[in-house]
């Protein structure tokens, strides 16, 4: 049975065609796919496998090794709570628990309406602002859990 594949955009196809000439470029291509779709679906992996003539097993081996690559679709707004050392010591865990309780999901899950997901990440490199939460590309620093409902509300709808 032919597997279902994703139709890649012309830009993405061009990127892959260009990078496939270079050695060791699989990770760069996966980054580009995730940039476009937010995650690497089985279907995209299948399409890539055919384009660069590499077994699915090899691609999945790489995708699952690296934390950065996601195989499930994240929420429209991705809450990333920093759990680097500085943030952990200053209450990162409390922020995670509060996010979980506000959105009623666990770390790694997506809300039913697809609006939010929570991730715990290792050091976003703003240790001077600990504890830190990122929503998409916005950084919120020196947070207390009381500020979370308001921040989350900003992204709702």
């Amino acid at each position, binding site marked *: 049975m032919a597997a279902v594949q994703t139709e890649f955009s012309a830009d993405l196809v061009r990127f892959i065609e260009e990078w496939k000439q270079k050695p*060791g470029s699989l990770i760069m291509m996966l980054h580009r796919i995730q940039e476009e779709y937010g995650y690497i679906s089985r279907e995209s992996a299948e399409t890539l496998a055919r384009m660069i003539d590499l077994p699915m097993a090899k691609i999945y081996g790489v995708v699952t090794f690296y934390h950065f690559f996601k195989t499930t679709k994240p929420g429209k707004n991705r809450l990333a709570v920093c759990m680097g050392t500085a943030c952990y010591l200053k209450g990162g865990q409390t922020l995670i628990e509060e996010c979980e309780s506000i959105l009623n999901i666990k770390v790694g899950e997506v809300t039913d309406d697809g609006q939010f997901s929570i991730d715990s990440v290792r050091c976003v*490199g703003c240790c001077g602002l600990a504890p830190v939460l990122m929503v998409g590309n916005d950084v919120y620093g020196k947070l207390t859990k009381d500020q979370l409902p308001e921040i989350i509300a900003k992204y709702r709808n």
Partner: protein
Amino acid sequence: MAYKNFILVCGGTGCESSKADEIYRNLLAEAEAQGVKADVQIVKTGCFGFCEKGPIVKVLPSESFYVEVKPSDAKEIISEQIVKGREVKRLLYKKEQQKDIVKLEDIEFYQKQFRIVLRNCGVINPENIEEYIARDGYAALEKALFEMKPEDVIAELKTAGLRGRGGAGFPTWMKWDLTRKAAGDVKYVICNADEGDPGAYMDRSTIEGDPHSVLEAMTIAGYAIGSNKGFVYIRAEYPLAIERLKIAIAQSKAMGLLGDDILGSGFDFDIEIRLGAGAFVCGEETALMQSLEGKRGMPVPKPPFPAISGLWKKPTLINNVETYANVPVILTKGGTWFSKIGTEKSPGTKVFALTGAINNSGLVEVPMGTTLREIVFDIGGGIKGGRKFKGVQTGGPSGGIICEKDLDSPITYESLTALGSMMGSGGMIVLDEDDCAVDVSRFYMEFCVDESCGKCAPCRIGTNQLHSILTKISKGNGEMSDLDNLERIGKAMTKASLCLLGGSAANPTLSTLKHFRDEYLEHIQEHKCRAGKCKALVVYSIDPAKCIGCGLCARRCPVNCITGEKKQAHVIDASQCIKCGECFKVCKFNAVLKK
């Protein structure tokens, strides 16, 4: 066009996330609106290092150092300082106690610092190559290409005594020399910018603030070892650094400082950016090269060393960002000059990311041999909230905790190792009495469990075992035999793991077992966590003598387990309590007890 004033706005990630970009745009708009655009140049620079007080804005030539600036302050900075020539006093940095206003060089945070690696951070616009060149940028490359033979470059590094700043401290000249002498036509130069150590951001700030220093050094390295191709392997989590590197590469190519026939010397060198994907183990050089080849980033046994057989089995030179950033200065000022800074065996400076329970968080660069006490208490300004100092964690998940009695030892590669920690890449996290030694060890071990690549058994199984024992102790279920097991397993991992991730994963545990054994014993024997961090061991209760029955705690309790009549002492039902600590925080009468 000559400008009368210059405004430097910090464009590091920390300040950017506190709206530095908006400040920058507002300043530009205000300068235009108030008709002083021709008098002032507004520049976005790299990190100033004083992240605690960000966003930071500095005005030249008056050297006004503004802290915690808001976008709305832009108007006043332009109208007061640029138009009328008066400092905006309320924004100047003030010392906590004296309330006097100080210039940058008087701020204790900067006084003991000595900047080589961060020489251009907070000074130049990292997106403009001309500013780098104006500060002797690319002079070292020119000198190397036209006045020095490759052997001379390496000899200069040997005189300087520069050692690897990634943590292990291997002499840099020796790496370069080995790669140069290795047989083969094709060789590679790699810059390790996979800064995965949680709590460390030295490399990110260096690239964000001064990307050309790294590119220049890599090109010099290419010339010295006979390579035409370099790779920067950088974390995908650092978008700003990646962007600035891309701009820098394009600019240096356009000026003939990178690419074919550099400066007409006949030497070709190209640099490509490759992204990491969130695997700590890829900071290990053999794993990094596996990842660069597009594979799972698992370490391979050494030897053969990368200098002989590295990327695609070719001789490869791999150094960390901070190591490279030292190289251009060594060539322009000379190895002898460099060797006189720091200590005899560890010359030069080291950049640390100082964070945790400290007043002045930020990026600091100090000569080697500076003591930890000077960093924590003079530069760092001591512990937040006047709490008691407990220890300094260096080297991240591979390091240990150094306690009070060892604070006066000078920082060198050897001294930190002797104290059961290590230099590491430069994370320096300060702990106070509210931090629990068992909890911190458990945190690092959890990190190592996540990040172990799983290839070798000592690391894969060992980290899991240590983590489960530490979790058990932090829950109050520990036994005395657990302490022996922690030591036994930890030592076995140190000896038998394939790479340094596993080889040093036990360090936080072993060092806390040594320095904070009494805390482990308290957890096991008395079921007590003195810092109150191990939730399972904390019990909240209300002191009836102090409680006035205001009911605030009862209203805040998320599980409604606090009851009591109005104006009567309240009671916590310990069986329902989830130990969130809300009642403890809200009580204004210190009636809630935490034991």
